């Protein structure tokens, strides 16, 4: 079984990447919303928000990148849901292939699709004046954190993808995830928020991830934030992976 895992997963990855490339609108939609938010925040609300000496594009880009990922994984759930609905998933499961390859192909596709969206959004941010003097190590750290965050959210997305009864159900889970950065340090410094909101904002995963990426881009010391951020991502990843695999095993009994 495992002898074919790599070749089967590669074959299936090729299939779902072809899906993505034949419906480029999914990537465009994923990138358009964060770009529109970025335009609005920078050119409309940004002037009213005091972020100190930092330019507002630099300040909010990390949060925008997380929103990009949160809306991107909705399509991961959607693609998996489509396979479950049609007979193709059962065809794969009844074939002599490495069965878990079916799921891994979707996960890897999610990583590739999100990478393209993230690069697009970062490109637009550069046009809008985003600048960083970050060196290679800082860039690799940023990419590493975003990779972990994407992987963690992708495994969350697998769960509704496998269990949803309707298309809407398959993607609705992503709305709270898209909203989470608003209740963090992503757009507004947390010390302007009232007590309970501030407490939530300072203790939820997005804030430590946003702060880490922001400091890495600004060539500032990241302190403990990078470890807290990594711990959050790995923790979510492990739990989501466990639940998703459990759900998967029950589905294919």
């Amino acid at each position: 079984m495992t002898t074919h895992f790599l070749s089967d997963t590669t074959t299936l990855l090729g299939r779902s990447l072809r899906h993505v490339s034949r419906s480029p609108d999914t990537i465009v939609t994923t990138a358009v919303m964060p770009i529109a938010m970025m335009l609005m925040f920078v050119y409309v609300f940004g002037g009213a928000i005091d972020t100190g000496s930092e330019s507002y594009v630099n300040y909010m880009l990390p949060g925008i990148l997380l929103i990009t990922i949160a809306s991107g994984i909705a399509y991961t759930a959607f693609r998996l849901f489509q396979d479950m609905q049609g007979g193709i998933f059962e065809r794969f499961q009844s074939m002599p292939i490495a069965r878990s390859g079916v799921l891994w192909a979707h996960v890897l596709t999610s990583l590739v699709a999100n990478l393209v969206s993230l690069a697009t959004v970062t490109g637009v941010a550069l046009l809008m004046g985003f600048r960083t003097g970050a060196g290679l190590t800082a860039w690799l750290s940023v990419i590493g954190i975003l990779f972990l965050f994407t992987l963690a959210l992708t495994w969350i997305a697998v769960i509704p993808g496998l269990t949803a009864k309707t298309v809407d159900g398959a993607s609705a889970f992503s709305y709270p995830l898209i909203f989470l950065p608003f209740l963090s340090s992503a757009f507004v410094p947390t010390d302007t928020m009232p007590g309970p909101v501030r407490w939530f904002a300072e203790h939820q995963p997005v804030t430590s991830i946003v702060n880490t990426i922001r400091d890495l881009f600004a060539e500032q010391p990241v302190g403990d934030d990078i470890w807290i951020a990594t711990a959050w991502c790995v923790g979510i990843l492990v739990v989501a992976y466990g639940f998703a695999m459990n759900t998967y095993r029950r589905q294919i009994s």
Partner: protein
Amino acid sequence: MTARSTAGPAIRVRGLEKSYKDLRVLRGVDFDVDRGGVFALLGSNGAGKTTVVRILSTLLKADAGTAGVNGFDVAAQPAKVRDSISLTGQFAAVDEILTGRENLVLVARLRHLRDPGAVADDLLARFSLTDAGGRKVATYSGGMRRRLDIAMSLIGDPPIIFLDEPTTGLDPQARIEVWRTVKELTENGTTVLLTTQYLDEAEQLADRIAILHRGRIIVDGTLDELKRLLPPATVEYVEKQPSLEDVFLALVGDDGTDKERS
């Protein structure tokens, strides 16, 4: 590549039981399917036909009983079973976004065949889909989709093929196309387990017929054996009226040989 074993029946099912919560779908199903030919599992909607096929194709676990496919136990040796079968489910299991040819290449790759492109082209020709091979499956008619679906199931030459209600939802011409395809399958020794709710379909295609009713097989035999269960035929003279199907096919002027309908 494919696990061949020649001893024993193609499929052996003993005392198969399956419930969904309180609903007892299968209440002890027994039947054997000999090698070669078409075996039809006939039953009305909800009789449990699909449940039987899902258990035999390792997609579902039975609550009780045993099932062997190609000599391998479905619960103990699922990988060997999957190596022996192909499933064409109730809804055409094709990838709509890929072209017909890409669908075939995909399955050939997953079956680790040496020249996936050649396998695909060969099957496209055999199923009169060569011209449509480069088009997205989303543009195919129901009959074309089914033909592609069955073509995908033949890749890797599995000795046993499950066809779960292959003509449900198809128009008359497409049905005839599928029937012709199924008849051709058995010419090279493949065993076909077909489920259907259409009596004429079982009559047209099957060498043996088992009737599944309320979770049990109530009769099992050749068409002639089943006919002998009723009192001998009496001769009556009845004016031959054309059936609606005769009228439809005569008016449309089509016996299902066209290849490009949409």
